[in-house]
């Protein structure tokens, strides 16, 4: 191993107890899956259904593992160097940017590839059951390895462009969500296969985009004879399109990365806004702002939570002018979207209440997706970022109480999510007006359904915020807390939906149990979507999530109290 960065990264990532523990847990999980799904007495149907089912679970499971952990490993690879002030030292050596990229990429992905290799014997065991072809297992391994490289390169590129680890992680997970899930969604029967309804050009574009999704590629391998397998008749399956396309994207992203690292140190933009507008002073710019960012802020009042005020003043996204702008944009976009959908589809007259129910489900799903995308970013750095910058010690020598810290951080983290719900709620309310407007009678059941949707979105906001704060209190690094929060939210709210993809793979009881914690499923149930109403998720979901949220909140309070005690 002549590349010193690669050697260092591999050594430091593999020599920890955590790495060993993760390998053991991973293997045990694989063995448990095989043990649970292995046919009794090794007997199976001649069609090889059990082997295919096992292959699907193992393939998708390993893919999700890579999708969740590859960004966490690579998106902090360069930002951590920047935060530790070792980035410049790295470039002051005789190492070329290419060596740095290869070293960082190899070091970050070695552990994940090791996990893939460790899972190979388990995949090979499926041959004992019959019904699985060697080429199919090789295709699964190929998709896994290429996905690790593909997502790893994206994470590394984001890491090269960002300065703070947690921002890099958030950005990478955002891209990951789009690439893995959103690009694939138009191709799924569960979403009405929008791709087939988009016209000849639209369907081709959507087909190409779906081919970039590693999830779609894996589905086409493990469910080869289903409607998930190919974008259109006559075209090869998704995974055969995915492998070369992902390789091309990998090369292109690698090229961008190298170009970026040729000039790694960009001069910082000068800080503007040094000007302060005194309170009460009126000038021309006063009329351009509802809240002028340059206006001198008042001193903190006795009834205000000092920590919350500090958060609102220091975090750019929480400053009033940005909150208002974001809320305004969300409001306008949500209303416009509803108008456009309603008017262009033109089906309201025929379908009436049925279409309204679908639209309610779309808005509810959108709200939940936004909350689980934005929520962790708001809360997962709330406590550990103060610990990273030593501000925690300063707060501990002050007279601030633990409760003040927890409640202040909570307020600052939840406000953007509540504003988001408020901003998207008009889209829900418009649905109540349209039936009457289009000549249908008022749907008596709509208002309760909207209320239930809002209850689910509200509960999801609380859960995501408290979960982020919990990990922020438990982890000492913001990057780790952010990765844990996104990972957990991803598993609970996105990964559990995957049981829908194979209608025959899982029983209804299993699906119902898996869907209970899932906010998207609960929101769609609350919206009246039949697919989810059969599981009666709403009440069970609220009870479960409320209980977990309260538990996590109490654990966070205790942890913060512990952190503030002298050790």
């Amino acid at each position, binding site marked *: 191993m002549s590349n010193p960065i690669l050697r260092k990264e591999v050594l430091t990532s593999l020599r920890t107890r955590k790495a060993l523990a993760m390998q053991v847990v991973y293997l045990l999980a694989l063995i448990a899956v095989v043990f649970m799904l292995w046919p009794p007495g090794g007997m199976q149907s001649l069609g090889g259904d059990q082997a295919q089912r096992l292959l699907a679970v193992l393939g998708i499971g390993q893919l999700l593992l890579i999708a969740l952990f590859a960004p966490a490993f690579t998106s902090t690879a360069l930002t951590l160097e920047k935060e530790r002030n070792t980035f410049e030292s790295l470039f002051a050596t005789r190492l070329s940017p290419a060596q740095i990229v290869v070293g960082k990429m190899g070091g970050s992905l070695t552990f994940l590839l090791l996990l893939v290799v460790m899972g190979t014997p388990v995949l090979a065991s499926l041959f004992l059951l019959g019904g699985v072809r060697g080429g199919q297992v090789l295709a699964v391994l190929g998709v896994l390895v290429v996905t690790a490289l593909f997502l790893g390169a994206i994470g590394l590129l984001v890491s090269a462009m960002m300065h703070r680890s947690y921002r890099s992680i958030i950005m990478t997970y955002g891209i990951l969500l789009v690439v893995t899930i959103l690009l694939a969604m138009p191709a799924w029967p569960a979403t009405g296969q929008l791709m087939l309804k988009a016209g000849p050009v639209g369907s081709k574009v959507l087909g190409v985009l779906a081919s970039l999704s590693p999830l779609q590629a894996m589905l086409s391998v493990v469910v080869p004879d289903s409607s998930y397998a190919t974008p259109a008749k006559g075209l090869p399956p998704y995974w055969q399109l995915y492998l070369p396309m992902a390789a091309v994207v990998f090369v292109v992203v690698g090229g961008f990365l190298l170009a970026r690292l040729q000039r790694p140190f960009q001069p910082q933009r000068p800080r503007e806004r040094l000007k302060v507008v005194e309170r009460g002073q009126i000038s021309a710019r006063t009329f351009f702002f509802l809240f002028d960012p340059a206006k001198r802020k008042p001193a903190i009042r006795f009834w205000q939570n000092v920590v919350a005020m500090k958060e609102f003043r220091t975090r750019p996204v929480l400053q009033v002018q940005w909150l208002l702008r974001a809320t305004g944009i969300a409001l306008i976009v949500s209303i416009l979207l509803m108008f456009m959908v309603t008017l262009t589809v033109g089906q309201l007259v025929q379908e009436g209440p049925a279409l309204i129910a679908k639209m309610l489900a779309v808005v509810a799903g959108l709200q939940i997706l936004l909350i689980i995308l934005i929520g962790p970013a708001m809360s997962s750095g709330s406590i550990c970022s103060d610990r990273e910058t030593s*501000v925690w010690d300063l707060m501990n020598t002050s007279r601030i109480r633990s409760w003040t810290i927890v409640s202040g951080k909570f307020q600052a983290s939840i406000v953007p999510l509540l504003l988001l719900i408020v901003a998207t709620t008009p889209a829900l309310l418009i649905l109540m007006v349209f039936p009457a407007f289009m000549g249908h009678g008022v749907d008596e059941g709509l208002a309760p359904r909207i209320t239930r949707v809002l209850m689910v979105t509200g509960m999801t906001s609380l859960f995501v915020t408290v979960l982020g704060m919990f990990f922020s209190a438990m982890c000492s690094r913001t990057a780790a807390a952010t990765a844990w929060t996104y990972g957990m939210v991803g598993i609970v709210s996105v990964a559990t939906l995957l049981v829908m993809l194979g209608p025959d793979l899982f029983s209804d009881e299993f699906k119902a149990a898996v869907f209970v914690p899932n906010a998207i499923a609960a929101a769609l149930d609350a919206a009246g979507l039949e697919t989810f109403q059969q599981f009666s998720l709403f009440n069970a979901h609220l009870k479960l999530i409320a209980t977990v949220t309260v538990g996590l909140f109490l654990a966070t309070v205790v942890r913060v109290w512990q952190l503030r005690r002298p050790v």
Partner: protein
Amino acid sequence: MSQNSDIMLKTEGLSKHYDEIKALDDLNLSIPRGSVFGYIGHNGAGKTTTIRILAGLLKASAGRAIIGGIDVTTDRDKLKSLVGYMPDDFGVYEQMRVWEYLDFFGAAFKIPRRHRRQRMEEVFEITGSAYMRDRFVDTLSKGMRQRVGLARTLMHDPQVLLLDEPANGLDPRARIDMRNLIRLLADRGKTVLVSSHILPELATICDLVGIIHQGVLQAQGPVDQVVSAIARDRLMEIKAGGDLASAKRLIQADARCSKLDEEDQNLGVLRFRFKGDEAALADMLAVLMGGGVKVVTFREVPLSLEDAFMALSGMSTSVPDTEAESDEPTEPAPSSATGSA
């Protein structure tokens, strides 16, 4: 130092162990009200551990610390009002102006709003940082940031200031400013414990010093007393015209001269260690002159705090420690060179 000499900060047998590592061992400090106590030690000697225990951020493994009559382990809330802590590297918030930063910490110390504004003006004046009021804290230079850090530490008007390496990373001008600032605060009645490894600076502003090495306090007391107690042999310098060989021979032959330190033939200068009082020195001078040495100057070189620190921590310096290099049986360094001033 203030005439009021009641003890403001006291530790008794204070120890901190991390498994088998003793970060602090049986520390006994005694600092009078209104004095500046210079806390000297290498990196990792135990300075920050001590300060963090005193600030209530770390729990002692044994012993106790009392500040203003309050045990730091039992009444943390009162302690917080009494103590101002400035860490070596303190965090600042992005996107926050200096006055907002001070306002936040003022509110965190529960200073009423109307008093907070007045207090802010006072600390701006004391620290000379009023001109930075509307600057963003994270854009300030190191020197400016240290001033703001001190202003933050002073916001709640603490009686005791714990300053961990406040001059670290500052340029000479900023170091002088920081030094003057610390002295000013002591003159206003604050009790200051300041750690540093820039020793000459501490020597000029401290009423008392304590030298810590590997978790053990080696000496404490007024600077001159600590230095003289450590350096039991006097360092003498003789400048002579002509050949130094005869002077060298006479010095080596004299039993009172323990060690010949260095010589500079070009300047005609010799340095040596001498045991004896003023009369013995006069006698030595007579011996040299009687031996034909053309003495130009004959003087005692005052030992610096740095020399004392290096001697106690067992490091070689330009003026090496007699004990460390002589063949004579050695004695342990004094645990407390003098009583408190």
